[in-house]
């Protein structure tokens, strides 16, 4: 088995929330571990507040993790580049942001973004280079002279992708790249991403809350809930045969006109109970549970890719999980707003480069 391009081990991120008088620590990401193989698209699926954006920002070195390791080509970059990401890291790992309207500086022309990306990493910004970049993402040369507000949302997102491509990265972190685009435009951007993986062998971490698009695009899918990874495996396997109750809950909630019956409250309540108060291992006796951290149970294998589920018994639901699940209950108790605060502080507390 080849070395994965990027390995994350035990990543944890806490945020300080509140005023001087009532500080609270919110754990956005809790002991997360996964591998990103080269040239493959891995989807990270979860609801808002699940911590998935935080992981992307940690990997993009916009946030400093509280603990854990990030291994790029086998080297723990959190130790070798403690304070600031090196240029070499930036050349290998790039990011595309969610908001097409906010991720391009309105005072610059498109040409500026691409030129800077090329020049900073030692490539020359010749007209040919710019044209090639722009055409790769499906735009035309005349758009180079435009300002961001003159382009549509989908075009802006393509520009962001071109900017990421300019440095010739090995990994692109895509944080909900299509969720703010018009519905009919999304597929085009997804197809572009798929093409880039095929033609340029670029690995991608595709973060989304849209299960359908994850299934469409990704090779591997991981499901995140309340700051923890609860399931992972081949994209089709995870969607077609979800093992963790939260994954099943998510899938049952997606509107699907082909489904005869929509909402089944009894089934949903049962799934919630399975997560919050597990009494026994749903996969038989816990003999096949991984004895090491993170605690996982292998439920299947597809083309050498294990389909794993987080053990319920040995790793019970965290406080955050309880809060989130209770909030979706009809007779919900008060939510202290911790998950909402996490989203708010994710942006507010960014470290310097």
């Amino acid at each position, binding site marked *: 088995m080849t070395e994965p391009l990027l390995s994350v081990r035990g990543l944890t991120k806490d945020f300080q929330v509140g005023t001087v008088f009532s500080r609270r620590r919110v754990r956005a990401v809790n002991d997360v571990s996964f591998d990103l193989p080269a040239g493959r698209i891995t989807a990270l699926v979860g609801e808002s507040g699940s911590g998935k954006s935080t992981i992307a920002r940690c990997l*993009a*070195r*916009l946030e400093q993790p509280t603990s854990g390791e990030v291994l790029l080509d086998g080297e723990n970059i959190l130790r070798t580049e403690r304070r600031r990401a090196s*240029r070499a890291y*930036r*050349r290998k790992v*790039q*990011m595309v*942001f*969610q*908001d097409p309207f*906010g*991720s*391009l*500086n*309105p*005072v610059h022309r498109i040409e500026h*973004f691409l030129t*800077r*990306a090329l020049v*900073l*990493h030692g490539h020359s910004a010749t007209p040919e280079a710019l044209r090639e970049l722009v055409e790769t993402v499906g735009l035309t040369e005349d758009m180079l002279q435009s*300002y961001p*507000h*003159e382009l549509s949302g989908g075009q802006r997102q393509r520009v*962001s992708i071109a*900017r990421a491509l300019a*440095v010739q990265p090995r990994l692109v972190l895509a944080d909900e790249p299509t969720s703010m685009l018009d519905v009919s435009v999304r597929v085009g951007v997804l197809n572009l991403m798929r093409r880039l993986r095929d033609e340029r062998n670029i690995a991608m971490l595709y973060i989304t809350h849209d299960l359908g698009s994850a299934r469409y695009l990704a090779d591997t899918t991981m499901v995140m809930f309340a700051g923890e990874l609860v399931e992972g495996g081949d994209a089709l396997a995870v969607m077609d045969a979800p093992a963790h109750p939260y994954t099943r809950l998510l899938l049952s909630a997606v509107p699907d006109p082909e489904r005869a019956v929509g909402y089944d409250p009894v089934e949903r309540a049962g799934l919630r109970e399975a997560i919050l108060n597990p009494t026994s291992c749903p996969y038989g006796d816990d003999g096949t549970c991984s004895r090491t951290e993170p605690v996982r149970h292998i439920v299947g294998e597809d083309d050498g890719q294990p389909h794993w589920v987080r053990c319920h018994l040995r790793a019970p639901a965290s406080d955050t999980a309880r809060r989130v699940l209770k909030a979706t209950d009809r007779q919900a108790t008060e939510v202290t707003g911790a998950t909402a605060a996490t989203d708010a502080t994710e*942006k*507010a*507390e*960014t*470290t*310097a*480069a």
Partner: protein
Amino acid sequence: MTAIDIATATTPTAPARASRRRGLLRQLVDSKKALSGLILLALFVLLALLAPVLAPGDPSFINSTGSQAPSAAHWLGTTAKGQDVLALTLWGARSSLFVGFTVGLVATAVAIVVGLASAYFGRVVDDALTLVTNIFLLLPGLPLLIILAAFLPPGTSTVILVLVVTGWAGSARVLRAQAKSIRGKDFVAAAVVTGERPLRIMFREILPNMASVVMTTLLGCVIFGIGAQAGLEFLGLGDSSVVSWGTNLYWASNDGALMTGAWWAFVPSGLCIALVAFAIALVNYAVDEITNPRLRNRRARRERRG
């Protein structure tokens, strides 16, 4: 644009689109307010520059009898000492405008650096700079001015220094707030991820988005510079050998012009200060209107009506 172009009608970027394309300066010239303000300002600058030509010789030269009312020989009369008020006013413009603009520029520059650094680096740097800013804000301005002016050697540079020291903090706070809000935007994070260096991000990514706030801050600082300088000099703390509007007022009050009713000795300089401040305020107001789409609609509707 066709029926399909509804998005532009509902989003606020549509007018901003046009304004950014046409450039702030171009739009300033279009606005009536700004145009009148700019013309007035230009007039004063012109008069200041041409003072040696319009009123040759040393303006503080005593060349006539004192306290003469305006006449054909002396259009604005003479001071109690016998100096030509018109010459004093014209030459006074040079110092006042020079000091005013210099203070404005330097104070704004300091405020920009402090604001950007605070916003970009955050945490410790932000806390430290905010503390310094707050200290300077809390210190009472006039007493500080007086103390500094009293201890430092008299001269124009002292006046400029003193005014910059007391004037930068207010602007710094405003600029920091604006810079912070821009710092949190995705395009700054994108620049970081692309590999841009902090200095470049501060001055080429964040600052250009603050153009209108910087402009209004600058204009505000200039008004402060002119007014505070006049105030200092009126109190006798400036360099009284220099001819400026403030010192003109100082001498006028010192020589009892206010009591003898020789209005021509102090009204011209006072009026000049007021007019320059007014001109700058007009330009400031117009800049505000141009950059704030909400104010713009009202203006457009008014212009259409009248």
